[in-house]
């Protein structure tokens, strides 16, 4: 397919799109409604007045609470659903990664399923053998396995084949609905890399996720849907920040009403998801690197739990490599004792990230000169991530409680540089 001039028309254009589902008391009412105009139904509006345009090659994020209309939006762009009002225009071939395992027939072999789904994705008879080779290679399943009925596969094997089929497409527009965490550790990373390559490869990607960390890392623009309407749209950081503060307000509001411990835990869980990828390290599966030791060092370089404001502090992370070729990044978050984030950073946030690999470095020090944290109790979390900063190899969360004492009288948790003028 010839490349279009990106100035001519956006890759995806939604104009005043609305989608309403009618629910009927009896199934026959729906049928009757096709022929007459006075039927009984309840209208549920999934989307209302949504207009947006996604440029060629852009990675566009969709965020919002459950039931906000995210999936409906993706379905409309993917073409599995038709808008009730308005127009959806998509230029080029669309492929959708909405749910893994779609179209697989359990009684058929892996090979037969790949051939059929390839045909569904528009692979012609001539390219089919080539397509099968690619898919089989990506799934890392042996010929022997591929010739067995899919129903005999383990969940992991099935997921690998399903993901290989789903992503072995060369669409102009790719629609992804949180299909990231599949299979074992090794395969999770592979899947993520595949999606990254779509984003980097100049494809137009529409990406929906609850994982704001991934949204931030992948998307250039974001739309926030709220009860079927566009709440905000624009630069990722701007929209995500607004959404985060909305989420926090909401969960605090709930806490005041209920005040239970469970809610508080749930809120912390939710917050955790915002900071780090959901792909938690598999406990049993192979991971190429683990955190061996974490130390908090005082100004003399001695491990300590008590620090003074404005004295030097350092966080030392020692890693153990099982595969020394692994390249990695390290992230650190400092929390107040109520697990409110104070500050978080990572080696991949640097303007010119260092190339860290098990061959050269297995110890990293985050040095914080003149610790700008005031009196209180604090915690840290440490993450070891892959070279993209999206996949977690290992993590140590809410560990190493430490206290800080401030000799001065400033209030709060963080010292903000300032001066008084008159």
């Amino acid at each position, binding site marked *: 397919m010839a490349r279009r001039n990106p100035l001519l028309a956006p890759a995806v254009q939604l104009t005043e799109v609305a989608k309403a*589902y*009618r629910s009927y008391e009896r*199934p*026959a009412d*729906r*049928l009757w409604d*096709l022929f007459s105009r006075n039927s009984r139904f309840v209208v549920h509006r999934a989307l209302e007045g949504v207009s947006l345009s996604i440029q060629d090659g852009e990675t566009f994020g969709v965020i919002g609470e459950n039931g906000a209309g995210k999936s409906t939006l993706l379905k409309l762009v*993917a*073409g*599995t*659903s*038709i808008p009730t009002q308005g127009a959806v225009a998509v230029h080029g071939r*669309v492929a*959708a990664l*909405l*749910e893994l395992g*779609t*179209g697989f*027939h359990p*009684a*058929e072999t892996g090979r*037969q399923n790949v*051939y*059929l789904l390839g*045909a*569904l994705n*528009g*692979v*012609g*008879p001539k390219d089919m053998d080539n397509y099968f080779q690619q898919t089989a290679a990506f799934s890392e399943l042996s010929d022997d396995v591929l010739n067995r009925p899919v129903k005999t596969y383990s969940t992991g094997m099935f997921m690998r084949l399903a993901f290989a089929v789903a992503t072995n497409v060369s669409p102009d527009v790719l629609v992804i609905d949180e299909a990231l965490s599949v299979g074992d550790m090794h395969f999770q990373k592979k899947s993520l890399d595949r999606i990254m390559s779509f984003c980097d490869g100049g494809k137009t990607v529409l990406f929906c996720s609850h994982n704001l960390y991934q949204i931030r890392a992948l998307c250039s623009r974001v739309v926030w849907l709220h009860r079927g309407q566009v709440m905000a749209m624009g630069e990722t950081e701007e929209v995500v920040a607004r959404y985060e503060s909305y989420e926090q307000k909401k969960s605090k509001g709930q806490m005041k009403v209920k005040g239970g411990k469970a809610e508080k835990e749930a809120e912390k869980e939710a917050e955790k998801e915002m900071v780090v990828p959901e792909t938690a390290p598999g406990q049993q599966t192979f991971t190429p690197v683990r955190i061996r030791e974490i130390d908090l060092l005082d100004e003399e370089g001695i491990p300590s739990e008590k620090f003074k404001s404005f004295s030097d502090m350092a966080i030392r992370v020692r890693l153990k490599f099982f595969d020394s070729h692994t390249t990695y990044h390290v992230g650190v978050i400092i929390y107040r004792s109520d697990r409110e984030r104070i500050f978080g950073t990572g080696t991949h946030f640097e303007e010119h990230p260092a190339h860290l690999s098990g061959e050269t470095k297995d110890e990293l020090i985050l040095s914080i000169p003149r610790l700008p944290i005031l009196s209180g109790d604090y915690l840290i979390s440490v993450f070891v991530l892959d070279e993209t900063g999206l996949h977690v190899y290992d993590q140590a969360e809410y560990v190493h409680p430490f206290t800080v004492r401030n000799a001065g009288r400033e209030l709060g948790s963080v010292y903000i540089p300032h001066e008084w003028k008159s």
Partner: protein
Amino acid sequence: MRELKGRQHFFLMWIQRDLRGRYLGSMGGLAWSVVTPLFNIVLYYFVFSLILRVRIEELPGDLGFFFYLLAGLIPWMSVAEGLNRSAGALVEQEEFIKKTVVPLAIFPATVVVTSLLQQFVGMGLLMLLLLVTGQLEISGLYLLPVLLLAQVFVVLGAGLTLAVLSVHLRDVLQVLPLVTQLLFYCTPIVYPSTMIPEAMSWIPLLNPAYPLIDLYHAALLGFDINVQSLWLLAFWVLLLGFGGVFLFRLIQPSVEDYF
């Protein structure tokens, strides 16, 4: 048919999957697709020829009835299977349809196509049998392609509509086998049309299968072609073929929302 454009390859693969599922899926596999029709043929032959002594004017004797039975029953079984299976074709593929972009018409169309396979095999065997016994009349065989085409139109039109209807109204799937059974006995398959009493001569006019089977008899056994049957068949092709596609188009957009 316009919907299938560009999806021919998938259509072909889907037909292959349907055939595999039908003939290779169960333990007996291919064996059942031979045993089941054979069982029906033997049963009808036993009841209607040996016990009820139904006789065909043009083809005297038990063997004559046997050929008459086969000439009508073979296409009928394909029609009945096409109708019954295409009615459930969308309901069965609910998950597939919900999550992929694929023309809905492919699913009932596949079933109609695959149901023709056993008819081809059956008719081939019947003609071989007629040839061996020296009773093959080639004068009417030219009608066969026309009849097959008409049959596909009628079954596909009705099947498409039944498929979308049963998505909204599952009861269709319960009622349909009863309707096909009724149609079977209203069609001269296990008896000649001459046995229909005068007072009931209106029945064939309401039965789309009547002219079709009547003309199959004429084509395969060399009977005189009934002109009224030709007109009736043309009428049903227009009504069910085009009307069915029209209704399908009308109801189709609501299918995705309903699932």
